[in-house]
């Protein structure tokens, strides 16, 4: 049997070229290179994504798909708090860090000396460990042993509770986020500003435009893609805020997201529901909501960036 199959193959053992074409052999090489990565992406990213959706739409009793988790969410005050807080983080931090970033980039663009020094100092917070700097800020905010109240005292401003005051805690966390992210915005703005052709700015000057007019009518419109990029990445990362909150307002007598849930974000809420209360299905459902929010922001970005610009 076997011999019969092999026979016709053995026959043309002359000096004919191999039957597999060059293209086919190269395709085979490509598949060999890709098999492990493709399995990885399917197994570690794609299937888990589907699994998360599956978990969100099923409950423990396993009687088909249900919206029970989502109904529970709507009825849960802490979830509404988490959603509201998360949107507050977005609204407070994104415009602020972009404004600081732009002002810094414009100022550094005007000086000739110490450019690299300024850039380094302003950018360092962005790359250093979020956990480490969160604890430094927590120390500085501390009502008893913190330097911030001490400094406020010099100006006769009464001491604040900061992270321990439900009315101030979210703002205090936001300040740390702005402090960390402004340097990133600065760096991207610096790149965006450099990309603006000198001739445009010179043309404006020749036409008699002042500094403000040049900025308003030349620089600002040309920075548009940079602004969109920073707004979108800023919103997405603010939607995912977790580490700062966990380390600024967690433990030591208060649960993360305290006091009184005043700083709890959606991811903190997911973490508490999933890994403190071990309600993984419910936590999955919350991540699905988060995913949809992020997707919406991304779609808006694609829509805006694909719009043609005319100079």
């Amino acid at each position, binding site marked *: 049997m076997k011999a019969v199959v092999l026979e016709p193959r053995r026959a043309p053992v002359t000096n004919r070229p191999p039957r597999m074409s060059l293209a086919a052999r190269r395709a085979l090489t490509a598949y060999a290179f*890709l098999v492990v990565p493709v399995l990885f992406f399917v197994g*570690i990213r794609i299937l888990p*994504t589907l699994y998360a959706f599956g978990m969100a739409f099923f409950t423990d009793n396993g009687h088909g798909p249900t919206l029970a988790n989502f109904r529970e969410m709507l009825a849960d005050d802490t979830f509404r708090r988490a959603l509201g807080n998360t949107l507050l983080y977005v609204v407070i931090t994104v415009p602020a860090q972009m404004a600081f970033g732009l002002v810094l980039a414009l100022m550094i663009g005007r000086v000739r000396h110490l450019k*690299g020094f300024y850039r380094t100092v302003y950018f360092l917070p962005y790359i250093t460990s979020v956990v480490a700097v969160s604890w430094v800020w927590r*120390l*500085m905010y501390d009502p008893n042993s913190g330097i911030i109240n001490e400094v406020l005292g010099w100006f006769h401003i009464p001491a604040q509770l900061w992270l321990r005051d439900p009315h101030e805690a979210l703002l205090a966390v936001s300040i740390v986020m702005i402090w960390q992210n402004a340097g990133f915005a600065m760096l991207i703005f610096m790149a965006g500003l450099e990309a603006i052709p000198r001739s445009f700015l010179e043309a404006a000057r020749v036409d008699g435009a002042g500094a403000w007019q040049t900025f308003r009518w030349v620089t600002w419109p040309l920075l548009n893609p940079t602004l969109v990029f920073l707004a979108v990445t800023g919103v997405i990362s603010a939607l995912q805020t977790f580490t700062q909150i966990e380390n600024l307002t967690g433990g030591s007598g208060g649960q993360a997201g305290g006091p009184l849930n005043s700083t709890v974000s959606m991811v903190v809420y997911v973490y508490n529901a999933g890994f403190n209360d071990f309600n993984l299905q419910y936590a999955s459902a919350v*991540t699905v909501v*988060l995913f949809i929010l992020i997707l919406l922001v991304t779609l808006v970005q694609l829509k805006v960036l694909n719009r043609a610009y005319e100079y």
Partner: protein
Amino acid sequence: MARRASIGVWVIHVLLWIGVVVVAFPFVWMILSSFKSVPEFYQFHFWPKQWDLSAYRQVFTETQYGRWYLNSIVVAVVVTVSELFFASLVGYTLAKFRFRGNQLIFLLILSTMMVPTELLVIPWYVMSAQFGWVDTYWGIMFPGLMEAFGVFLMRQFMLGVPDDLLDAARIDGMSEFRIFLQVALPQVKPALSALGILSFLGNWNAYLWPVIVVSTESMRTLPIGIGMFSTADNGGLQWNVIMAMSTLAVIPIVILYFIFQKRIVEGIALTGVKG
């Protein structure tokens, strides 16, 4: 006119210096606080009267800090190497080979960029619990071994590698894998180093997934170690010890930044431009 301009520049320098003080202050405070003894800590001297090393001694004698440091290094290095290898291999293959399914595979990988880590940590946790990956290096590392963004970036750069160069190597009889390794890779070094540094920083600072998958003290990475030590409510916060830990965790990042400053800035700008 020139005089007015120079006054303007001086004002800008003053403003920038105020910013420098504000931005750098937490770092300075962190370092100074780590050298204060507990009683001195509560006296609000800016400068320590006596440089006290007891906080650093405590870090290494009373906690498993050395082990956490090692864990962080292992995780960050292995993940970075793996990410670079696979991102460039897949990017190269997608850019330089024509075969059925090329576009499909590219889209499949790209689509994973849309999914936030938060959605994935729960399934990953379930997987890890089932396969016994909880509390292992593999468990901490597996999600990061390949990243879609890296593939995307490397594919863009590999498109620019001249085909003639690769064909010449083929005529010389090099194997396809060696062509990738020895001909294509050296052509995209700048992209590799930018991606490598970003990946290292990201993994060095990673918090959400490690805090979920790690359960024993000895398997913590640095951020988890610092966070857990600080929140563990054992008789009040030892602030000077926490500051010593934080200082030690930030040092490698600062060193890395000064060595690779140009590459880091390039890398960030690259991610900025490519979105």
